[in-house]
């Protein structure tokens, strides 16, 4: 895979939710983290990231708070709400079911 894959909507949602599970993060941090953790395979562009963040916030899955960044700048930090936690678990289970199912189909096709 030479080019970073564009993220399908929905997939981006669970990546964001997963990324902020443990600590609140700002938009820039979320994008960087996803890129690093995925070994530069997944690049989140701001054109997709910020609308997604605002949508998740409006739906009540995440909550935003202003805080100071690592270099002492004001930044908007996103953290998971309780409802968001549940939603994430459900989506993760869905995702695992889906990917293992796809895996099964692909394996069967090979043999």
């Amino acid at each position, binding site marked *: 895979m030479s080019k970073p894959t564009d993220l399908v909507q929905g997939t981006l949602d669970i990546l964001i939710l997963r990324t902020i599970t443990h600590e609140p993060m*700002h*938009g*820039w941090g979320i994008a960087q983290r996803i890129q690093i953790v995925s070994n530069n395979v997944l690049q989140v*562009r*701001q*054109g997709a990231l*910020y*609308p997604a963040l*605002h*949508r998740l*916030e*409006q*739906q*009540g899955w995440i*909550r935003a708070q*202003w805080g100071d*960044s690592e*270099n002492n*700048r*004001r*930044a*908007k930090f996103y953290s998971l*709400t309780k*409802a968001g936690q549940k939603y994430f678990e459900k989506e993760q289970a869905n995702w695992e079911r889906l990917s293992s199912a796809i895996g099964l189909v692909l394996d069967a096709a090979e043999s």
Partner: protein
Amino acid sequence: MRWLTKISLRLRSLFHRAHVDGELHSELRFHLEQQIAVNIAAGMPPAEAQREAMRNFGGVESLKEECRDMRKVNWIQDLGQDLRFGMRMLRKSPSFTIVAIFTLALGIGANTAIFSMVDWLALRPLPVQKPAQLAFLGFSLPSNSGNGERFDANFSNVELQDIRNQTGKIFSDVAGYCFGGVAGDTTSADGLTVNGITKPVQNVYVTGNFFTMMGIRPLLGRLILPSEGRVAGANPVVVISYRYWMSRFNGDTAIVGKNASLNGHPVTIVGIAAKGFVGITPILETQIYLPLGMAAVNQAHVRDFMGDPKVRRLLILGRERPGVSLEEAQAVLTVVGRRLLKQYPREEHESALHAYALRPPGIMNGENPIPKAAFVFLTLAGFVLILACINVANLLLVRATVRQREMAVRSALGAGRGRLVRQLLTESLLLALFGCVAGIIAGIAGSRALTAIPIQTELPLLLDFQPDWRVFAYAFTAALLTGIFVGIAPAIRASRGNLNAILHEGDRASTGKRQRVRGALVAMQVAGSLMLLIVAGLFVRSLQGVTHADLGFVPQHVLNLTVDPHEIGYSAKQGMSFYRGLLERVRVLPGIQSASLAAIVPLGDTIIGDGLRIPGRQLKKGEAQPNADMNEVSPDYFNTMRIRILRGRDFTSADSETAPHVAVINEAMAKKFWADENPVGRQFIRASDPRNQITIIGLVKNSRMVDLYSPFDECFFVPIAQSYSSSATLQVRTIGAPESVARPIAQLIDSIAPAMPVVGIRTMTKALSGLNGLFLFQIGAGLASVLGLLGLTLAVVGIFGVMSYTASQRTHEIGIRMALGAQPEQILFMICRQGFYIAAAGLALGICAAFGIGQLLGDFLIGVKPTDSLTYAGVSVLLTAAVLLSCYIPARRAMRVDPMVALRHE
């Protein structure tokens, strides 16, 4: 608690928009700065680091817009913004706005006015409790023509009691009622005397349970009680309708409890019915209510009104029990009907008893023409609205062209296409909304004007075209559709422009395609207005036909005055002597040629007739008893009306009560019963008066009696002295203007019989415009003409506008052509040619449309075919002339263009 968070977030975005937007800005700013920092760390010089980060980031404004969209409440803010902006744009070009709103108001107004008529005549539920449960009963009759249901809905009181006792399973209540007065079975009006003043009223006799069954409460006093009305003559009480109370007694509360008299019989006014209740046939206003038993007093000639099962004067209403299915109800009614027919035989022994839904305009035997007429006129009004829409759409298209640059700039600044369309649609919807408000006002004014037309009738017709929520909903829906219709094409066009091309293009941005769209729209306008004009032409020709038809009598110089001695309690003997005295004294008044009495005025509200038996003529088996129209007249009638006596003689004063009974018959009757033989001297017997053999003493020319267009009915005339009618119209033929003798005659009547109301004082010429006369033709022609003229105006304005615009857009081209040697006439021809094509296409289309709608008109046209070639040709010529004229003016202007000016025109 998620929903709480959601709501608070949305409220925050709605009411703290600036703050929320500021946050969004800092958030994205922070992201950008982080990127710059990373770039610098990677070794870029600061300026390049910043440029690279910005380039990478993309369009900040469109990203912000996307984030805002996520807030879900954005559309509210957008709408507010669009509305504010739309208002500003409309204010900025007031002439455009006024023209557009005025045009739409014409279209919507025409629709509102016509719909409010349809609403009153056919849609508004009856003003009673749960009107959908009400049904009336009738024995079905075979329908001989058309699609209307025919039935015999008359029952006797005895039958009513039987039905009530046997239908408890399906009806929670059963009531009977009987019209009195002019709308009743007799031709005589009923007079209500209060404080010594008698006025004719429309009354209804009801069973005691009528008001409780209708769910009507008294406004004052009480209504008729369930215990009342069972015995003939008992309970002499009167309940007055709210409208009548207001119009005759000015809402005087002291009227309750007053003694009054109806046709000379003492009664007591006991109450006023609730405000909105205008009776169960709202189009014919019921003014007073009496218990059923009082009908017996008033119909003294009927032997046993309450007890004779063959005196069938009642209509029966049932309130269906909730949950009873149609089949169940019908099963019960079939059994009851069969039993009734066995017990009290009728002519139609094979038919079944049915329950018919009681809907406006009331009980109507045979075909109901209202839905069809409503459909025709709503379609015509719809076409007017479409024409108006096309005009406004054309204006908006021109504006869209002008505003293309504005739109290009907007989309360059980050506005999405959907957002642009939404904004433009908001503008056109705003226009439509203003047009709607103006249209409703125009429509109300229009329907007021319609109700103000005097109808030549003594019936208390109630034309209450007040707009209700249905009318408003209709107008609003029309406006909404209009807004979308006129706005969508220009909006999409304006938002679609190619950015680059538009920003670089000059003002000469008119492509051939756009011109074609506009041309097609104008051709449609020509077609629509042609169709409207053809329909108007057909209606007008139909009216002309009936207006100039030979009536068989001469209406000019005749004055009618109607009196009814019965209203003040005169007996037949008293009435006859009153009439004799009146005739004697009227004949000697100055300016009078002749005077006579007649029970029936031609084309008036009522007709009477009788069954006939002709001695020596046997009915074939299964043949129904023949009948004929009749009129009761005084001597000199044929002279006054100028109905030609073909054979025999007129009545004289010698043909009195005691003399042998005589009659004069018309040609149709002579032809039917005596073919080519001389009928004078022949004899016949009236079914209602079997003891007196009547000798025919004269034959008169056919004359119009019932309507203006049917084949002449058989008709006979008898002396009023031998067949008394209490209600009679005094007809006088005058030397000068007939109106001039009205006052002396009214004074004369007052001197002979004070307190006798005189109604229907009008010339015979005017009386022809009654409900059965010209009225409907005049209304139809009037409405169709107004719609046709509206259509023509809109089409001419539309063509003129488009041609002017086209010519001005082509100024540059015209300049070049003229510089290259084109003659002004060639330019004129060039511009006019386009108009000519449009007219030709429009005419072809319009003629097809007119043929289509003509199929619906057959029933409403008399003496003219829906495909009348004269109308088609005349209207086509008229419209072509109008189109060419509206092309010629802009073309002439283009022809006079100075090439130098034109070439510099930019």
